[in-house]
């Protein structure tokens, strides 16, 4: 295009193609910085780095191994559940029930092992499958019966909570003795949860950004009618997202039970779910559908964890923490909406 050719090389955008032979280091760095700045994850990443620098200077205990384990264990469950929520938010849906799948899942495992003598691995798999099944039900009610997912998963969430309370009599139980060794690599070992989180985040980030399925998920959220006119099965894409969300809820529920070596009927619920949605939003996922980043949500989860841990180390009361979280959500959303508006106007 003549339009691009006329521009000076300094402001040329990072278009693919050969770079001029005399390309200096500064130009490369500049271009790298531009590409970095264009990533939606950039903002939250910078905030995380700034917080790390601050807390490391302000609190000597921050960079110790024990504290890093602590941060990783706060981050991981939120980050894993956020994978499912990001996928759902990208295609314009949400899962409010995932925190209750989280609570039910370790009970399912416990019932199977202790009451039905099922071996540990199959019991874990059935608990995961239970999560997928509830994800399928959420998807069915939303996609086929056309109830908005906000309401559909509000309903199923209560149902799942009730099932857990009836079957467990609302009493905490110990981890089945036979499951302890499996529990080590699933969640009880100091670093195991964060390893799971990083691996899953990496896998699903690639799936969302580099595969047909990911492209179709974004298409469904961006323009549902357009996507279906293009021949994409909107139902199948949404179903998959709900089922993945259910799976993640069941997985994290067991991991957390193993980590605290206790199956607790008061764990999970809306708390973990809203943390995951918050992480997703802070990380740059729009609630309007069509865009979202799983890595961003991971950094969002990390940011929330570092904040609460750092406050704790500095001896500051945790009372104002919700204010910070709330402001972070609002700033992230306002930035999201306004940047999108500017981008549409062609000003950035």
């Amino acid at each position, binding site marked *: 295009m003549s339009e691009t050719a006329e521009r000076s090389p300094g402001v040329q955008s990072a*278009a693919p193609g050969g770079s001029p032979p005399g390309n200096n280091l500064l130009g490369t760095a500049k271009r790298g910085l531009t590409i970095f700045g264009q990533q939606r994850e950039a903002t939250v990443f910078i905030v995380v780095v700034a917080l790390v620098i601050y807390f490391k200077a302000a609190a000597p205990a921050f960079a110790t191994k024990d504290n890093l384990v602590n941060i990783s264990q706060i981050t991981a469950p939120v980050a894993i559940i956020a994978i499912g929520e990001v996928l759902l938010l990208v295609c314009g849906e949400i899962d409010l029930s995932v925190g209750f799948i989280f609570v039910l899942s370790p009970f399912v495992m416990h019932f199977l092992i202790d009451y039905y003598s099922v071996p540990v691995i199959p019991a874990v798999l059935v608990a995961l499958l239970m999560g997928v099944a509830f994800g399928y039900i959420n998807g069915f009610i939303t996609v086929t019966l056309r109830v908005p997912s906000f309401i559909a998963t509000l309903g199923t969430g209560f149902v799942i909570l009730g099932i857990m309370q009836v079957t467990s009599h609302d009493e905490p139980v110990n981890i089945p003795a036979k499951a302890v060794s499996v529990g080590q690599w699933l969640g009880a070992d100091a670093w195991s949860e964060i390893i799971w989180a990083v691996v899953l985040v990496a896998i699903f980030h690639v799936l969302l950004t580099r*595969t047909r399925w990911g*492209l179709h998920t*974004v298409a469904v959220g*961006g*323009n549902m009618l357009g996507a279906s*006119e293009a021949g994409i099965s909107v139902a199948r894409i949404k179903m998959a997202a709900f089922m993945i969300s259910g799976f993640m809820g069941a997985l994290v529920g067991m991991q957390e039970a193993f980590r605290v070596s206790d199956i607790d009927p008061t764990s999970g619920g809306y708390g973990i779910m809203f943390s995951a949605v918050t992480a997703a939003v802070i990380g740059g996922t729009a609630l309007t559908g069509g865009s979202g980043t799983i890595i961003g949500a991971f950094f969002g989860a990390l940011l929330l964890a570092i904040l609460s841990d750092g406050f704790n180390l500095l001896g500051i009361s945790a009372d104002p923490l919700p204010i910070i979280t709330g402001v972070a959500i609002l700033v992230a959303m306002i930035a999201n909406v306004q940047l999108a508006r500017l981008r549409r106007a062609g000003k950035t």
Partner: protein
Amino acid sequence: MTVEQPEPVATQFADDVLRVEHITKRFGAVTALTDVNLRLARSEVLGLIGDNGAGKSTLLKILCGFQQPDSGRIVLNGEEVSLKSVDQARALGIDAVYQDLALINELTVYHNMFLKREHVRWPLLNNKSMRRQAKQHLEDMGVGIPSVDVQVAKLSGGQRQAIAVARSVYSDAKILLLDEPLAAMGAKEAAMILDLVRDLKRRGDVSVIIIAHNYGQVLEVCDRVNLLQHGEITLDKYSADTSVVELTNLVVAEYRAALEARHRSA
């Protein structure tokens, strides 16, 4: 040759790529299409005009497999086909460019160009190959956009339309259905789209049905015009044999008659 209407329907049957025979479609109590017959010759550009609610979009949606008719048949290259889905119609070479364009604002131009036909180097998308081919193809078609890497949200209405058309042509569509491609276009952008259609005609391997409201533009670019009124085809003429005045008169005739009747009774 007789001069009786509708005259062109009787001729050139052998070269028809598409024939619609006795199509009827109802939505509950509303009959959207009544016994519609329509034909499209090879490399022909057919204009489909009619007032709002006349059934144009319904007919288009049936032809591209998005909706199914209640009765009647669709004959493609001499063989009866049943179009059960968009995918199936597309596999048979029928592709539509909807009024809303079915473009995804959040995706880049090249991802939109290859939506549902992505190049894959398993398990990942082959972005490099899609980007290169999208660029090449848009250049071939004379569609000027700053870069295939921009989100389509940033493009103008005409550019978006051109990309939607290019996408269909590129996917080996032999019959292209354009639903109001000129709606809400400025003069310059409309000219660009009309040029694109003329180019397709010149290439000779694509037949086009255009739904439009601007009769001047329709007559300029179409070989033949069909008028749809209340779910029925009421006119079928070559563009050379009709005029903007005749088409306008036909469309407004019924309103005029109603108006006059009211005046008389008053």
